[in-house]
């Protein structure tokens, strides 16, 4: 029971709005693909998608005030009664004949906007807290970042569901209106119902929008620069310890002291004569000095991701980083022959795959499994 359409097509969606829509589709797709599917070292791309989505949302908020008629938020604010009436119409297969966003579409827009914004914000909290990167690295603790990650993930699934509902809604409304709404979002044009004349439409105010955008961008840049200038919370540059590097780096990579808690270092350093099945004894003065240095820089004194995840040691082997649940889980998909390959040498040679192992950061983006030389 679709409304009869006349021949006249009118421009409903202005160009900036259409660009916004499709760029949002693109950046959310990239964000979802890298978030759900890509390996850890794609985090950089994922984060850029997050920046893009955030910027697009800011633009859309400004355009909601200064865009042309149907971009303005005032054009799609409906009362609950109108919304219910519209939904009832859909059930009965009737189009409500809205030219711009209809009430169901408006609900979807507000839902998507709220969800996407929260995903972006929680994403930056995760990035700052867990990875100690991005604008929030200096202010968010690991624990907060970890909690935000749970929310970020749940909301990401919710977004998938909402996007599916959005597409379904577009299909249904397109049939009811006998108008390809997706195509309309590309061309900007919709045909008028027969006998209907083009409504009065306010045009956009690009200059006002541009000025607002410039002010917001300046504020964001200044704020971002201030935040980015802060040192990452709970990370520090450890002055190199040549004695440690030599003595504890002789048989394997010299592990960063943040990778085990003080109790583990203490226990290990008290039994160097039986160190994982080997005698690794040191002259007493050296042993005491290194034990003190390890304890003073143990995981308790850091808030990096690695320090947090390896703090929960295995009860059976509290001295092994590679025995922790986290280590096993994160490395379970790596073929065992990769570890024994010549270029790696063994599980304990973290630095073969983690380019930043000596700093204790263990950044996702610093991971590269070395190619075997034949």
């Amino acid at each position, binding site marked *: 029971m679709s409304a009869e359409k006349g021949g006249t097509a009118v421009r409903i969606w202005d160009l900036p709005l259409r660009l916004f829509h499709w760029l949002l589709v693109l950046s959310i797709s990239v964000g979802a693909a890298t978030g759900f599917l890509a390996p850890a070292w794609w985090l950089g791309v994922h984060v850029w998608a997050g920046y893009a989505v955030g910027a697009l949302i800011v633009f859309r908020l400004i355009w909601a005030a200064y865009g042309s008629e149907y971009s303005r938020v005032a054009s799609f604010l409906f009362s609950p009664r109108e919304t219910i009436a519209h939904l009832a119409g859909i059930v009965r297969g009737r189009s409500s004949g809205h030219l711009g966003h209809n009430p169901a579409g408006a609900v979807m827009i507000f839902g998507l906007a709220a969800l996407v914004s929260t995903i972006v914000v929680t994403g930056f909290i995760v990035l700052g807290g867990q990875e100690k990167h991005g604008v929030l690295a200096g202010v968010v603790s690991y624990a907060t970042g970890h909690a935000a990650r749970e929310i970020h993930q749940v909301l990401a699934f919710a977004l998938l569901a909402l996007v599916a509902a959005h597409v379904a809604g577009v299909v249904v409304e397109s049939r009811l209106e006998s108008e390809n709404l997706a195509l309309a979002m590309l061309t900007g044009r919709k045909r008028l119902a027969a006998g209907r004349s083009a409504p009065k439409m306010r045009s956009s105010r690009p200059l006002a929008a541009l000025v607002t955008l410039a002010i917001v961008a300046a504020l964001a840049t200044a704020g971002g620069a201030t935040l980015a200038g802060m040192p990452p919370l709970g990370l520090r540059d450890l002055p190199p310890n040549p004695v440690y590097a030599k003595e504890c780096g*002789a*048989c*394997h*990579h010299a592990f960063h002291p943040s990778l085990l808690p003080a109790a583990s270092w203490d226990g290990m350093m008290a039994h160097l*004569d*039986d160190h*994982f*099945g*080997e*005698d*690794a*004894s*040191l*002259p007493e003065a050296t042993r005491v000095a290194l034990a003190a240095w390890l304890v003073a820089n143990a995981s308790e004194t850091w808030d990096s991701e690695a320090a947090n995840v390896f703090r929960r040691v295995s009860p059976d082997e509290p001295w092994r980083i590679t025995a922790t649940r986290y280590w096993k889980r994160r490395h379970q998909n790596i073929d065992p022959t990769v*570890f*024994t390959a010549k270029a*790696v*040498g*063994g*599980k*304990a*040679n973290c630095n073969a795959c983690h380019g930043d192992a000596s700093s204790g950061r263990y950044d996702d983006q610093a991971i590269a499994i070395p190619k075997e030389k034949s």
Partner: protein
Amino acid sequence: MNKTILAAIVAALSILAVGPATAEPARDAILADLLLQAKTADGGFGGFAAERGKGFFLASPASGKPDTPSCTTCHTPSPQNTGKTRAGKEIKPMAVSANPARFTDPAEVEKWFGRNCNSVLGRDCTAAEKGDFITFMASQ
């Protein structure tokens, strides 16, 4: 102090007796010190022998820790080879010809003999065993 002077004298004597051991003063001093210890332990000790050192190196006493039955577990049976620790890190060759820096730092030599002898043999190596070992590696 006294010990160093004594070691120097013994070194000089041993050069006269068996010729220059390895032509590297630092290594010779280490060997001289070991020779002194060996003679103190056994008055009739007649000097280090590369052949005995080779046997010691290749043996599998397996009287120490289970994961390290022999020196060759890590150093491989050929002194020319690059070895590998149990944790997977490379060990430069032990043969002096392949790695001239070998056995030139007395503290390092003492530390590693202390560790590796305990791991492999379950006891300290004797001065004679150490000297034979270095002599063998110096001849390689």
